[in-house]
């Protein structure tokens, strides 16, 4: 069994077997991270460039650590304040970096499709670390790994994805991945935060948390961006928290052992109450740990697969 893709641009296009292959490999990577000696030589001599056109402390740190634990040389490029601001196009940046012969590019960009465009211009595997409102595949993989380790399976579980689905790449990747593994996916949000055609995206749609959380095995909260809180998509923070914030009352409608997840960074008191985020059902810290493992698995898979050898 191998992994038949050159890049990881999204969950779309991955089969159930592809996903399980990556999750199994990530399980192995977890062991490495839990050892005292965390550094391996799997990717020794190979160069990883993290190219972030949009600032992200957490994801960038996670990819950096994953690369270092595999022995790769890691370089971080935050392009938010470099030549791209001076008018250099995405494609030119890609070609410049490509000339430096990296062995993998990890790319985040604020525009949907930007990472795919860049991947057409470079000679190494590209990993999408989030492109606009399109996809964030490693987040969906780490979420699945977290669920699988906590519940023993993903298939047939009821997963409620709650909040700003409209602007969320995390939601899109999770909807695709969870469906591929046979979970029942629900989305819960005010209609202003749901994309057009959502009912045809393989989910059950709910406008109330009370209905959407009932009997759920997993409650996955999404971050609501600050600029969307004050009147443009929802009237106010306090109204949003009242109807869509995850508190003890709403969570009590889910199964007693339901997992609480959040991709971070959290807005405590907006989409999630502090005591729930820190409570016994929360697996938010486990998600962060699984993030490193999943990224190790993805990089190892892409960089060592036969077609991608330098």
């Amino acid at each position: 069994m191998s992994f038949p893709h050159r890049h990881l641009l999204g969950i779309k296009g991955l089969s159930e077997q592809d996903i399980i292959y990556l999750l199994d490999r990530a399980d192995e990577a977890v062991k490495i991270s839990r050892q005292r000696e965390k550094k391996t030589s799997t990717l020794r001599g190979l160069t990883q460039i993290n190219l972030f056109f949009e600032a992200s402390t957490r994801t960038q740190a996670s990819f950096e650590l994953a690369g270092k634990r595999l022995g790769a040389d890691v370089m971080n490029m935050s392009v938010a304040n470099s030549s791209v601001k001076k008018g250099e196009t995405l494609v030119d940046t890609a070609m410049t970096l490509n000339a430096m012969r990296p062995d993998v590019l990890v790319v985040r960009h604020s525009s949907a499709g930007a990472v795919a465009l860049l991947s057409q211009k470079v000679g190494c595997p590209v990993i999408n670390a989030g492109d606009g409102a399109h996809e964030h595949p490693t987040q969906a993989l780490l979420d699945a790994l977290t669920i699988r380790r906590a519940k023993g399976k993903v298939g047939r579980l009821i997963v409620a994805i709650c909040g700003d689905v409209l602007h969320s790449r995390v939601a899109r990747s999770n909807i695709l991945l969870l469906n591929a593994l046979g979970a029942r996916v629900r989305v819960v949000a005010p209609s202003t935060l749901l994309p057009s055609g959502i009912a045809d995206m393989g989910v059950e749609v709910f406008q109330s948390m009370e209905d959407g959380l009932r009997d759920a095995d997993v409650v996955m909260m999404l971050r609501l961006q600050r600029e969307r809180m004050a009147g443009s998509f929802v009237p106010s923070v306090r109204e949003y928290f009242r109807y869509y914030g995850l508190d003890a009352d709403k969570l009590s409608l889910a199964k007693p052992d339901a997992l609480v997840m959040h991709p971070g960074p959290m807005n405590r008191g907006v989409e999630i109450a502090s005591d729930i985020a820190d409570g016994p059902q929360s697996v938010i810290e486990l998600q962060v740990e699984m993030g490193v493992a999943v990224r190790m698995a993805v990089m190892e898979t892409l960089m060592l697969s036969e077609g991608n050898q330098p």
Partner: protein
Amino acid sequence: MKPRVLANVRIVDPSTGIDEIGDIVIIDGRISAIGADAAGMAPPSGAEIEDCAGLIAVPGLVDACVHIGEPGAEHRETIASASRAAARGGVTSIIMMPDTDPVIDDVALVDFVQRLARDEAVVRVHPAAALTKGLKGEEMTEFGLLLEAGAVWLSNGRHTVDNPAVMRRAMTYARDFGAVIAVATQDQRLGATGVMNEGLFASWLGLPGIPREAEIIPLERDLRLAGLTGARYHAMSISVPQSADVIRDAKARGLAVTAGISINHLTLNETDIGEYRTFFRLSPPLRTEDDRRAMVAALAEGVIDIIVSAHDPQDVDTKRLPFADAENGAIGLETMLAAALRLYHSGDVPLMRLVDALSTRPARILGLEAGTLAPGARADIALIDADYPWVVSKDDLISKSKNSPFEDARFTGKVLQTLVAGVTVHRA
């Protein structure tokens, strides 16, 4: 110039309703005789006779919506290069949109365009003038002087006039001059962040959508104002069947209203965008296949009067970008007729209606001396082999910009020769 005879050609002329095989006799750049009758007559002495058996002669196409980069963006397209692309597509008259830099909102600029066209263009180029100064939607331009200088109609370019009071007054004033106001309706706020058709496909791509209401609401408003003022109104580029419905109703109420559609919206749909292909990023956006089919039916019915190329040259600086950051627009002069023939070959639109929509009717709406092969008319003619198979190659396109949504498309039917005033300006 020697007299010319195009012999044994199938003549399709919507202006006279003729569809027959015969000859076209051209003397001094004008058609002197045409049809089966002309074939029976002796050719004029010294005439150059060309056997056109198997070909179709139609009046040269009149393209009512062409964006050109001159003045201001000559690296994308000049009047000369656009005219050569037009000749290749059988287009003998082009209406140049006023959204150049500077905007064509002044008599001096109308003169500039006409001078340049006279000196450098191989087809007829007619400027459209801006409806409001700088296309800002605030102050009227000098309608009378602009029309007198040669502007063929008044357009607000790609933008709806937001302020209904400004629009009402412009329509009222334009009526006195019998001018046509041509508008692409798109609500700037309702579709503000959108980059493609709103719906499931956009949602999966993570791209913000443009709802169809962004087109329909300002169109309905404008048609109300057309009713109020009695102005002649042309909806330049509609994309959804609900727009065709309101046009149909307005016509039934007796308003002087016409409508156009781009060839792209008749032959492509939103799924052609695939994985973020920016050449398919258009304004209005490509809609669904159901919409496309309904628009083809509305064209066949005649509710949609005309087809335009909406030729809009863009280069790599504006297209080789992430989809949401790219510009709208596609070139189309060279491929419009071949693409339109798809609708003929599929049996959806009869050839006569198609030629009407591409030539005769736009000429009539614009008041141009074109769109007809009647005796006495200027010999602007496209000679077509309707069964010629070919593949569009980027390298073959002669437009200065290469942003064609039909790159690598297979077509059946090609323009083999284009004549302007009896002179061959293109031969394949």
